[in-house]
């Protein structure tokens, strides 16, 4: 399985003299400015003929000298728009035909279902410059776009990708936008979602009975309301602009399957024949809105690709909204272990099927383990469909369960109690809770000792929280992942790691003990930038030592790093540096997010190979 990338012409027709040629191109060729690109290219090479969209493909007929046609064909792939991923499906010579000019023709609606729905793209540099230019007519217009950026997937209601088949159909273009749409020299030539404050959609701010429908006033109202609640706005904006849809060509055979993903940062993935399509970002499944979007996406994907799922696959966690949803659908459901899905997504995306002996570190916030344990610091060994847990981190008992996700101080306190450092714990509770600390602190301690709502987790994410709490970098977070991000951002220059002992447990799993590191953070009075740097270096060194130990026992072809923790650049680079200097091949995520947004694809892979 390999994510399809830009590929050279797969077919080539021999030519001489003047002639007429016919190409069909597939891949991500719609909604990426491909027809305007072909149009301009044909003009550059002095060709006549036409280009048009048909369902899922672009069709080109051109007449000219053989040399011009060859050069044109070459440039079709070489100079394609950066966000296009095209390949030439077929090329044939036709009887010589004379055209007056080169034209973009109306789309052909019929065709196969082998379609690629273009994803939404984040705003390009040129559009961003316009958006920030007070003299531009799209100054501060949030729905600015061009052929190289803006929404696609979100707007598409049917294919082919024409304005009439998108949510923009109801917005009639103003004269200025129409002129750009028709101007071959414009970045917005045939940009289907083109819009401006005069003719396009605008943001509306709604709170209770208050309605603000002026673009600028609405944005500032929104910002002022959300100032203290950075995360919801932040996530809304991310959801609107950063929603990647990755279409891969996968060696999948058998029945169509829909993978419903996880719980946080969720996506779904539909797979059939040799295709797997990952949905845009849905987000945290705890809200009704996200469940509605989730259900809509599951339906839309199947409708758009004309594929009906015959099986479902979900996470093993019984409390995930998506798992519960899957169990209600009346289709066969296959549960996939969280970290196996992470590891398989990584290996499959990398197209790394040849190797049988992967060692993948799946470090994240939490996932339901094989034995009902809460995992998140695991190393899995093997290959998709056959993963074996070979290493883990010493588990931490989390006081207050899920509360710890937004309250890093809980992880810090748990680590301090675990180390017998009650005074350190008291100090942190005092700082985090304030007035009631003297009453509630002992209560929490007793609950922790009695294991009341204090589950064990081996998640690396909680160690980051603990370190952020112990160093005072972040005690309470207002969005997920805030503490680790802040810890990374304050980390200073490279520094010696603290060694973490490894021991083989009775079940053969290697367990790394973080207590020396935590104890160092608690006891040694060093500047925060040094502590933060030492924490990152120590975890990287710990991972490296695990790899060395494991390679002594088994063959390892490559080491993979995935799970949300490896969104941390400092940690990832420190790991890669160590591994590569030892000559170990490292596999990292590419187009798919390494966090839980990649789970759905990994579930498909596990389902397919198991």
């Amino acid at each position, binding site marked *: 399985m390999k994510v399809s990338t830009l590929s050279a012409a797969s077919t080539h027709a021999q030519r001489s003299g003047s002639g007429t040629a016919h190409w069909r191109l597939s891949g991500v060729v719609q909604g990426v400015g491909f027809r305007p690109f072909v149009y301009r290219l044909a003009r550059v090479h002095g060709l006549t003929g036409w280009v048009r969209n048909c369902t899922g493909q672009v069709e080109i007929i051109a007449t000219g000298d053989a040399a011009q046609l060859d050069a044109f064909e070459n440039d079709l792939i070489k100079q394609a728009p950066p966000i296009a991923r095209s390949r030439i499906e077929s090329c044939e010579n036709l009887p010589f035909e004379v055209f007056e000019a080169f034209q973009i023709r109306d789309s052909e609606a019929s065709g196969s279902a082998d379609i690629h729905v273009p994803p939404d793209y984040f705003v390009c540099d040129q559009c961003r410059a316009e958006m920030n230019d007070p003299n531009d007519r799209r100054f501060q217009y949030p729905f600015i776009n061009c052929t190289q950026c803006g929404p696609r997937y979100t707007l598409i209601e049917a294919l082919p990708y024409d304005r009439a088949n998108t949510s923009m159909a109801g917005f009639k273009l103003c004269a200025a936008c129409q002129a750009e749409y028709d101007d071959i020299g414009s970045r917005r030539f045939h940009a289907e979602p083109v819009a401006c404050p005069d003719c396009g959609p605008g943001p509306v701010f709604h709170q209770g009975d208050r309605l603000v429908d002026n673009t600028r006033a609405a944005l500032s109202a929104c910002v002022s309301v959300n100032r203290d609640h950075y995360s919801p706005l932040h996530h809304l904006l991310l959801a609107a602009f950063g929603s990647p849809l990755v279409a891969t060509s996968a060696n999948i055979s058998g029945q169509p399957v829909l993978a419903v993903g996880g719980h946080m940062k969720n996506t779904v993935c539909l797979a059939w024949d040799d295709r797997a399509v990952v949905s845009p970002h849905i987000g945290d499944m705890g809200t009704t809105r996200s469940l509605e979007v989730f259900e809509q996406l599951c339906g839309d994907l199947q409708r758009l690709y004309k594929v009906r799922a015959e099986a479902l696959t979900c996470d093993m966690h019984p409390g995930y909204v998506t798992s519960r949803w899957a169990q209600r659908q009346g289709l066969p459901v296959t549960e996939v272990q969280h970290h196996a899905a992470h590891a398989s997504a990584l290996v499959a995306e990398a197209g790394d099927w040849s190797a049988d002996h992967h060692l993948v570190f799946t470090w994240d916030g939490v996932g339901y383990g094989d034995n009902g344990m809460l995992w998140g610091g695991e190393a899995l060994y093997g290959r998709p469909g056959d993963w074996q847990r070979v290493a883990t981190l010493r588990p931490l008992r*989390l006081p207050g*369960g899920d509360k710890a996700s937004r309250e890093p101080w809980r992880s810090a306190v748990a680590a301090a109690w675990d180390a017998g450092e009650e005074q350190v714990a008291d100090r942190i509770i005092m700082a985090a809770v304030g007035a009631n600390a003297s009453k509630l602190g002992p209560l929490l301690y007793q609950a922790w000792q009695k294991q009341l709502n204090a589950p064990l987790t081996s998640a690396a994410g909680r160690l980051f929280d603990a370190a952020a709490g112990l160093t005072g970098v972040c005690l309470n977070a207002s969005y997920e992942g805030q503490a680790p991000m802040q810890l990374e951002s304050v980390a200073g220059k490279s520094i010696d790691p603290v060694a973490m002992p490894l021991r083989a447990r009775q079940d053969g799993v290697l367990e790394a003990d973080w207590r020396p590191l935590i104890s160092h953070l608690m006891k040694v009075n060093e500047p925060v930038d040094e502590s933060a740097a030492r924490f990152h270096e120590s975890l990287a060194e710990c991972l490296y030592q695990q790899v060395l130990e494991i390679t002594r026992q088994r063959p390892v072809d490559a080491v993979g790093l995935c799970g949300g923790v490896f969104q941390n650049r400092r940690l990832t680079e420190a790991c890669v540096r160590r591994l590569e200097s030892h000559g170990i091949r490292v596999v990292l995520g590419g187009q798919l997010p390494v966090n839980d947004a990649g789970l759905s694809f990994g579930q498909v892979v596990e389902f397919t190979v198991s």
Partner: protein
Amino acid sequence: MQDKHISLAHGNGGRYMRELIEEVFARHLANPDLDIGLDAVPLSLAEGEVMFTTDGFTVQPLEFPGGNIGSLAVHGTTNDLAVAGAEPLYLSLNAFIEEGMEIETLDRIIATLAATANEIGVRVVAGDTKVLRRGEGGGLYLATTGVGVRQSDRQLGFDGITDGDRILVSGPVGDHGIAVLLAREQFGLRGDVVSDAASVLPFTRAALAYDGLRFMRDPTRGGLATVCHEISQQTGLGIRMQQPDIPVHDAVQSVCEMLGYDPFYLACEGRVVAVISEAQTDALLSDWRRLPQGDQAAVIGTVNGLSDRVLLVTELGGERMLDELEDDPLPRIC
């Protein structure tokens, strides 16, 4: 009776057992209908439907701030009759006593049970005791069966619930769950939170005066959220609750926040959830608020025909789905 502790002899049918029944149970529970010499008791009932229910009680610890297993055994069963629209009249009592239990404690519990029954006006008319071997029981288990009468024309149930009906709760939720937790685990905060264990009869009687009353339930195990799930599952309708409107005592809230519990899933033993037509909501609310223990009664939500989910609208206007209770809720986020 000389012994300070229960022994197996107190269950063997002989003198010890007779003394225990006479000196502990009969002494406290004496009433004109209780005759410990009879095998069965004749009851005369008023006009209406005979309502019949039973419940078992295994709470640990046996005594907690705001009540004990004795008061709970009366409230639990009579409250079940009350929310069904009945007037409770008679109880039976089974006591399973663990060998080694202090007789003084047992005496205190049965005294409370009797006083609670007296207050409500129900009579314990039949009973039995058994002694369990040491280690086979949690000190004392009780089971009570209740008989009551309901006016024949007063049908309550899920069938009458319709879109737009309002949901009321008679007081703050989660007190009992937290009070028992604090007492059971012998936390230092014992006493900060008092169980709400009480009879809900004053509330159910007030509610029965309204013909728009659809349904009542006491949110015991699984708490308010579970009652809402039951309503939603049985009717196919959704429920929207307004989080800021749901009364929760500050002490309960802060313990819940600290320990990571959700008060909406914690047991109450003296609250009622009622579903009533929109038109009669305000009237019932003001009736309830005039009752002792009713000053924090509140309208907390609406039956929503557009959805089949139980939703919590938060202070900021966000919507959170309230999941059905798991055996043991596992972290999903961290």
